[in-house]
């Protein structure tokens, strides 16, 4: 009797479970209608589709959409006449130098070039008075700012470390690299310390170099340090970069004690930067199979062309 009841209960349970799936089968939500999507024929969208989406699988957002900005932040959209020129810049001075070094560079970009680019016309100004120069998110999206200041004749707008578009682009792209592959092992141990938010406290360029970083922002943490070194290395001329950050200065002529101490500390910092740079170059060679020096040389060649001719080659 006990067994019979068990069987009946089981059977009822199975039937009930089946009926749960089939009951009310005619109660479909037929009021849902998906939104209509019409493909844009705007020249910007047509260009972006053929030059970014079909080639790299990257979506470019240039029309204003406040979902990409926090309610406390303020920015303005990019001028629509600048969307195609900026996209050409992205292709020629960002993607191009990596792809020019061979298959390893092409694979690197195919894998890591962000799935989404967001263009904005101004910097993003925050309530606290500070401003964002650009940012990378989730290893997949980079937001490019201050694009309405587009000026190919202005080397500072292109490469200036405090907001130049290429410095920002390569800084943010390097975030995507480490967000996917981590920074080189041991990189964070070369400098004695990082300053965290203390980087905001009037840390001068010399202060940063003494700590083994190329810019005050790099003193914040090892990730910003890594990105700053890569972006400075790529966008600065070889001569400027080495003179400022690598080459040990001859101190034999300095007699002033304070000046001597200052220069000694700077030389120590330069040695740390050189050590980090070597580690970074090895990291790119070993992890991705290409030489970052070749990328830098190609970048400089292209930059010279753009600044001299005020255009991109066809």
């Amino acid at each position, binding site marked *: 009797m006990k067994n019979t009841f068990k*069987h*009946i209960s089981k*059977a*009822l349970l199975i*039937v*009930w479970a089946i*009926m*749960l799936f089939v*009951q*009310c089968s005619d*109660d479909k939500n037929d*009021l*849902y*209608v*998906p*939104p*209509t999507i019409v493909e844009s024929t*705007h020249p910007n969208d047509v260009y972006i589709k053929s030059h970014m989406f079909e080639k790299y699988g990257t979506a470019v957002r*240039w*029309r*204003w*959409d*406040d979902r990409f900005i926090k*309610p406390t932040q*303020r*920015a*303005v*959209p*990019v*001028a*629509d*006449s600048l*969307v195609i020129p900026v996209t050409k810049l992205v292709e020629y001075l960002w993607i191009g130098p990596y792809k020019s070094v061979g298959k390893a560079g092409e694979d690197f970009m195919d894998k890591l070039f962000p799935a989404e680019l967001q263009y904005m*016309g*101004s*910097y993003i*100004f925050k309530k606290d008075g500070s*401003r964002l120069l650009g940012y990378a998110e989730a290893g997949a999206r980079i937001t490019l700012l201050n694009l*309405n200041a587009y000026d190919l004749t202005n080397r500072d707008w292109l490469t200036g470390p405090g907001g130049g578009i290429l410095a920002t682009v390569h800084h943010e792209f390097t975030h995507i690299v480490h967000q996917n592959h981590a920074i080189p092992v041991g990189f964070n141990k070369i400098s004695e310390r990082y300053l965290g938010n203390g980087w905001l406290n009037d840390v001068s360029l010399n202060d940063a170099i003494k700590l083994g970083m190329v810019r005050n922002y790099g003193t914040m943490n090892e990730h910003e340090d890594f990105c700053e070194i890569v972006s400075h290395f790529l966008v600065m001329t070889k001569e400027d970069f080495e003179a400022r950050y690598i080459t040990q200065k001859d101190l034999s002529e300095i007699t002033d004690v304070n000046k001597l101490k200052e220069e000694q500390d700077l030389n120590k910092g330069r040695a740390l930067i050189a050590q980090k740079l070597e580690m970074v170059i090895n990291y790119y060679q070993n992890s991705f199979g290409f030489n970052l020096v070749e990328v830098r040389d190609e970048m400089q060649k292209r930059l010279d062309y753009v600044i001299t001719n005020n255009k991109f080659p066809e």
Partner: protein
Amino acid sequence: MRFINYIFIALVLLMAGCSDNDTEYIFDKSVNERFEELKTNYTNTLAAPENGWIAYYHPNGKAGGFAVLFDFDKEGNVQMKSDYLQGANDDKITYRIDKTLKVELVFESHTVLHQIYETNDNDSGGEFVFNITSVEDEKVVLTSKTDNGYNGEEITEITLVPATKDQWDMKPIYTMTPKIANGYQSDLYFRVIRVEGTDTQMGFSYIEGHNKKEINRVARISYLDGEKVSSTDVPVAITPAGFKFLKPFTINGKEVTDFTYDETKNIFVSEDGGQKTIVEHSNTPGVVYYPAVASLGGNGKYLSTMYRHSYWFLDILRNSSSDFKALFNKSKISRFFIDYNEVLDDGTKLEANIYFEHKVFGLKSVAVKVERIKNKKIIFKPLEDPAKELGFLYALTKDLYNVFTAPEGFYVEESSVGTLYGTFSAAKLISVKDPKAYRFVTMFVP
């Protein structure tokens, strides 16, 4: 009971559960369908007027306004034109009707609304993403999506009304713009707004200018409020015929808005409210209220007016009237200043001494008595014979001295002098007898 009976009961129960399971929908269409319908309606309305729309834009009710024209098409494009920076940001851009919490109109790429928004590092108010508040054939009201109205800040709102073909030609506005400026074709110093046939009169000043930090296009109207002067900045839009206030302003109990330029008299006239309200240049202030009369020369500091070799000379020169500068140049003196509350060696206390310095005749002074009429004017009354005290220098400085000691006295405006070493507090003395001719700045020497 047989097993089949249990199954039968279970089936009956389950089917009963479905018997009355119809959902009562509030709407007969999905949210996307309803939004698409609304979007189509709004797009049709926006694109309908033959000559597009015109709005007068003044971010957060503070600065402006600027005439902005919109010509929407149904494909998501809008041609925009404005008189801001003489149309420097006119462009055809894309727009989008979208929905977040409300249905909104987004101006998607950079044009005049964004250019104004960018002032002062994007911190000058304004908007380019608007909630669509109301849509009618003859009027569309758009309200800022991000203004929150905290701290009493006005929320940016623009009202679009159908434009005429003529309004797309901005040249009449550009022609009118200089005529509104203070001092246009007039050497009278003051400007007033008054109601004809009444005693109602207020001070009027037009302030216009744009730079990276601020945008101004306002009428500053000053009036007596009890014992002191208050002032209100009213946003102004320039029209082909004159100008209009973008916020209601009441004068003599009537709300006035639209002013028309009268070329023959160089005045602006409003007939609003059935009264004739006039904006004109004047030889007398709209409101006589000069509290700086009390502080001029306080703390025993001397006031430098003209001093050819000083680092403040250039700015003083720039802010003084041309007739006064001509008198100073004619006098050939190198320096002219006033020393207040001076105590002479014999213990005599003088209220003020006027000093003149000449490279040949040296430094001479003449004492004057200072009479202050509270909040109205200051008068320098002769105490000594200037011919005797100034000697040969009197022949050169007589006209200056007479201006200075005119019995009508001076209005005193607070002022400042900009120098290479910073900005210093100063006062501007305006002759009551002849304000258009004699005005000069005196600086409190540090």
